[in-house]
């Protein structure tokens, strides 16, 4: 009896909070037929938003992946003063509000910011332009790869790398042939979560973007613009694409968790 009641409560709670919103996105997007859905993407501003989102992710994700590997390598393989401090600082962006994450770049590069005058003299735009969007997105997705790799590499230990080096292998060779095969699933896990957040970030990007249609609106910002125009079909069409991204991310993530035999957080 208790069992049925608790399962029912869980399903109703998740139904109202998760399934209904997801359902409404796909029903609203595809309810008028696939042609209407496809037609929403003919709009040039929508196309520009998709391209900008892909461009941003294409810059941010590799950059944060390289950072994550470097941070995990030095933290897992070496002992040095300030190591726990470094680990705490890497997680810092997760604690900061997305709006504050955008604000800090405005204070740095905006017209009244620290470097604002210099940038204006040299005719470089960062805020209300693509570089600002890339910076703000990098900030919010900064810890994703590192926080997957650090515990994984610490747990794997150094024995195999030490053996490879002692036997005469070079540093790069050791990384690509010894370390990488052992961390690849964890790395992929971090990368897909980093990518999902990079493509979906709203708050931080909203502050630095300037909302110029066709130029500085990413997909999430374009959803807001269409919503404010009461162009619901368009808003839900873009939202359905991002929901699809979330669903694919979740499937890959679940498969990786089964593969690695662990559950994360």
């Amino acid at each position, binding site marked *: 009896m208790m069992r049925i009641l*608790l*399962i029912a409560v*869980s*399903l109703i*709670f998740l139904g109202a*909070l*998760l399934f*209904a*919103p*997801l*359902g*409404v*996105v796909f029903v609203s997007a595809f309810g008028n037929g696939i042609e209407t859905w496809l037609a929403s993407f003919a709009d040039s501003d929508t196309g520009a938003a998709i391209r900008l989102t892909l461009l941003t992710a294409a810059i941010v994700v590799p950059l944060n992946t390289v950072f994550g*590997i470097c*941070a995990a*390598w*030095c933290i897992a*393989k*070496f002992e*040095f*003063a300030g190591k726990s401090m*470094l680990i705490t*600082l890497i997680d810092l962006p997760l*604690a*900061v*509000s*997305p*709006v*504050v994450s955008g604000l*800090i770049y*405005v*204070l740095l590069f*905006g*017209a009244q910011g620290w470097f604002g005058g210099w940038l204006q003299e040299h005719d470089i735009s960062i805020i209300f332009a693509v570089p600002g969007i890339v910076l703000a997105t*990098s900030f919010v997705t900064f810890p994703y790869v590192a926080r997957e790799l650090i515990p994984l590499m610490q747990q794997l230990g*150094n024995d195999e790398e*030490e053996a490879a*080096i002692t036997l005469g292998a070079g*540093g790069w060779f050791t*990384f690509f042939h010894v370390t990488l095969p052992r961390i690849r699933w964890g790395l992929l896990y971090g990368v897909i979560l980093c990518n*999902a957040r990079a*493509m*979906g*970030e*709203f*708050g931080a990007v*909203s*502050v630095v973007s300037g909302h110029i249609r066709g130029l500085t609106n990413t997909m*999430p910002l374009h959803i*807001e613009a269409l919503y404010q125009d009461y162009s619901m079909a368009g808003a*839900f069409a873009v*939202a359905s694409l*991002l*929901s699809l*991204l*979330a*669903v694919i991310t*979740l499937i890959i993530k679940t498969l990786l968790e089964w593969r690695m035999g662990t*559950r994360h*957080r």
Partner: protein
Amino acid sequence: MRWRVERSVIPGFGITFGFASFFLGALVLLPLTALVMKGAGMDWTRFLAVVTDPRALASYKLTFGASLLAALINIVFGFIVAWTLVRYRFPGRRFIDAIIDMPFALPTAVSGLALTAVFAGNGWIGQYLEPLGIKVAYAPLGITIALTLIGMPFVVRTVQPALEELPRDVEEAAATLGASPAYTFFRVILPALAPAVLTGFTLAFARAVGEYGSITFIAGNIPYKTEITPLLIIIKLDEYDYAAAAAIGCVMLAISFVMLLTINLLQAWGRRRISGAVRR
């Protein structure tokens, strides 16, 4: 303390540490310093006037009130969901388990748009609530629901592993000794899970306080009524009042640090609990 405690044959410390700290410094620490300096550089009376302005106070009340309520809803229902997933076997359990993380993957703009559509007066759920006089979309209740959605996985994912590790024999012992199920739950199970529940609560609360994306859709953004603190920062920036934006930003950053500290202390408490139980 020496720079490196032990010499290692593994190469690459210089380049990896160098790149990691440079990237961290340039991307995270320098911009955050700019915010703190901007706030600290302000005239103290002006700073105080900005952060205690009635409109700002109304936004704190709403942001904290709605976040607190959302986190409370989550510890009740998140606990039930975690309990159901750990203790019961039913068709679709693995699917439900996987989809709990959806709010981590779903962009906040999508969840905001979708929740607004579901809870609007003509929406799937809103149409049944509106005749009862319950207004969700464009009202504080809508903000609470959006914050509940984004905080939900934090509570489930911290309570779930703690519940899995909870030894079943303790409950059986309590039952054998004549304790009622309710007594066992409140005096045996709940105290053991307290660190996990509190950690989940704080994580959900901390995430909710900073949230902006989903709220901007569902809140209606009416000053003094449904205007959250992050939105107020954006409004100040739109007015080119960078100093005021920085002042409110500093308040939010300070709150983030307090939350981060609280979470670390709670997790340390939880670890002590577990290692203590193992030693016994």
